[in-house]
């Protein structure tokens, strides 16, 4: 219990980061390299802060409103960037994030300018945050099995093939942007309400980098990966403080090693292992008898010589 209280900030941050990581991971799963979720994080953070400070809206109503707003923005954004793909799209979304942060700095009264907003006191509890995450994870589980998973795989790996098989690629992508916006905003809003403040400094390139690192190292195909990534990168800095001034170096080395040795993320690494074990037990569809038979057939062919036949 003491441990829980002492590390409450990190525990909460783990779940917030989990949602943030998901907002990057969801588009990635359908093959869209988008960081717009980080921008939604900002939208959600500010929306929740403004609603709480100015209008005294209850926590879950503020979060809900922020989520809806960001989901709509996410959807509209997907319409705007419909023609973009790959790293070009990634750049456009980075631009989106940075523009949002500039807007926050220049938002005057509304956003509190460079100071940001503070005093967003609410009744959001850690339990509430965890409950939201559990619901999100449960919903995502449904997308990771059966037909929906296959559709998502198809849209990511081969959009054209998906089309010819009756899978709407464009709606799927729009949905991904919308969900990503909602999740990002949820993370941002809850973080603001837990910390009671938001400042434009939070919305920077490092947040993008953090979100990406969590997803890639945890695993980009399943919410479990995002969760593992969130756990690692929320707690790693604290754990590393034992190495003192060189913690930054150790942190970097850990990231590098993970990138090299876990090409499909931690979750992928576990799956690969499982696959390998399964592969060991699978026998080649070969029966030596068959070969023998075939060889006998050919013996007759080489009536005068069996040269070359082993």
């Amino acid at each position, binding site marked *: 219990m003491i441990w829980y209280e002492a590390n409450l900030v990190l525990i909460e941050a783990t779940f917030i980061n989990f949602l943030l990581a998901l907002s990057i991971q969801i588009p990635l799963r359908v093959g869209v390299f988008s960081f717009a979720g980080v921008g939604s994080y900002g939208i959600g953070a500010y929306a929740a802060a403004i609603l709480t400070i100015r209008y005294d809206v209850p926590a879950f109503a503020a979060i809900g409103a922020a989520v809806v707003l960001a989901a709509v923005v996410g959807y509209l954004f997907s319409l705007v960037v419909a023609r973009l793909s790959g790293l070009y799209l990634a*750049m456009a979304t980075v*631009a989106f994030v940075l523009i949002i942060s500039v807007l926050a700095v220049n938002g005057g009264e509304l956003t509190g300018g460079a100071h940001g907003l503070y005093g967003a006191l609410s009744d959001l509890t850690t339990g509430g945050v965890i409950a939201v995450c559990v619901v999100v994870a449960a919903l995502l589980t449904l997308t990771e099995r059966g037909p929906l998973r296959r559709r998502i795989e198809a849209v990511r790996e081969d959009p054209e093939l998906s089309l010819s098989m009756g899978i709407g690629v464009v709606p799927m992508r729009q949905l991904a942007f919308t969900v990503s916006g909602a999740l990002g905003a949820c993370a941002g809003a809850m973080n603001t309400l837990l910390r009671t403040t938001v400042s434009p400094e939070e919305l920077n390139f490092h947040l993008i980098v953090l979100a*990406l690192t969590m997803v890639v190292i945890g695993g980009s195909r399943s919410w479990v990966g995002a969760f593992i990534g969130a756990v690692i990168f929320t707690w790693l800095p604290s754990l590393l403080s034992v190495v003192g001034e*060189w913690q930054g170096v150790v942190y970097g080395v850990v990231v590098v090693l993970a990138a090299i040795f876990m090409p499909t993320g931690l979750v992928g690494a576990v799956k690969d292992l499982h696959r390998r074990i399964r592969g060991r037990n699978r026998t080649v569809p070969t029966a030596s008898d068959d070969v023998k038979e075939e060889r006998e057939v050919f013996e007759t062919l080489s009536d005068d010589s069996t040269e070359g036949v082993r």
Partner: protein
Amino acid sequence: METLINAVTLGSIYLLFALGMSVAWGTIGILNFAHGSTFMISAMVAYYLVQQVSLPMPVMILIGGAVGMLVSVLTQALVFNPIQRRNPDLLKAEMQIVVGGIGVASVLLAIAQNLTKSVPFGFSASTFTIRAYWVGPVQISNVQLVILVAAAVLAGLTAWWLRSARAGLALRAIGVNPEVASLMGVDRGRMALGTMAAAGALAGIAGILLTYYLGSIAAETGDSLLISAFAAIILGGVGSVAGVVTGTMILAFAETLVVTHLSGTWANAVAFGLIFLVLLFLPRGIFGRKEVRRT
């Protein structure tokens, strides 16, 4: 007019920085997020050297280039190459490479922050002194001149090499399909190492010149340049030297104009808004090759 020169100088700095990154990315498909730290570490090593012995600018440039090359080659050999070996599919490896680069960048940044405590450092101990000249009504300094010339020459050389030399073609082939490139007799490992060496040297040179020009840089300087460079490369279109040149210049002009006529606060918004707009109309940047895809 002076604004023009200032903008072109800023553009040239971005260019020097982005050039190496663009070449590595556009050819062998390595998007190196440690490019900024490589740049910064080169300047930092040169700084520690120049504190010991007062060195002239050309020597400093050589040192910076050498350090950048070394760092970059080590990054390739120890991080990117193992990633690619384990993941022959370039597209799949792309993300790992980005994250690996982020890791390397944090290592280098942490080292530099530790050593300098993030206090800015400069080359005031170098024998080089900055002089400003008046060319008609325009003022231009000797560092600006060096930067302009260096950027033009290096960009020209890179473009020529990529276009005419067979090695340039081989590099692009590696970027498309490393396995088939090796079937053509291309030594992928060596080519990649060579490219990264060149990219690193460019980063190092940019680090030295920028430090002279700004007077000082700090450990975090490389990171802020990284986003700008990334943006400029995308804006111009990946894999084209003309693209990087255009991209960096547009970015520099936009920023300069905003800073001088509007307000620095909006510089980022305008620059990135511009990139956003351009991408909406040209989804693969200004000089980007169209994606070859057919049914």
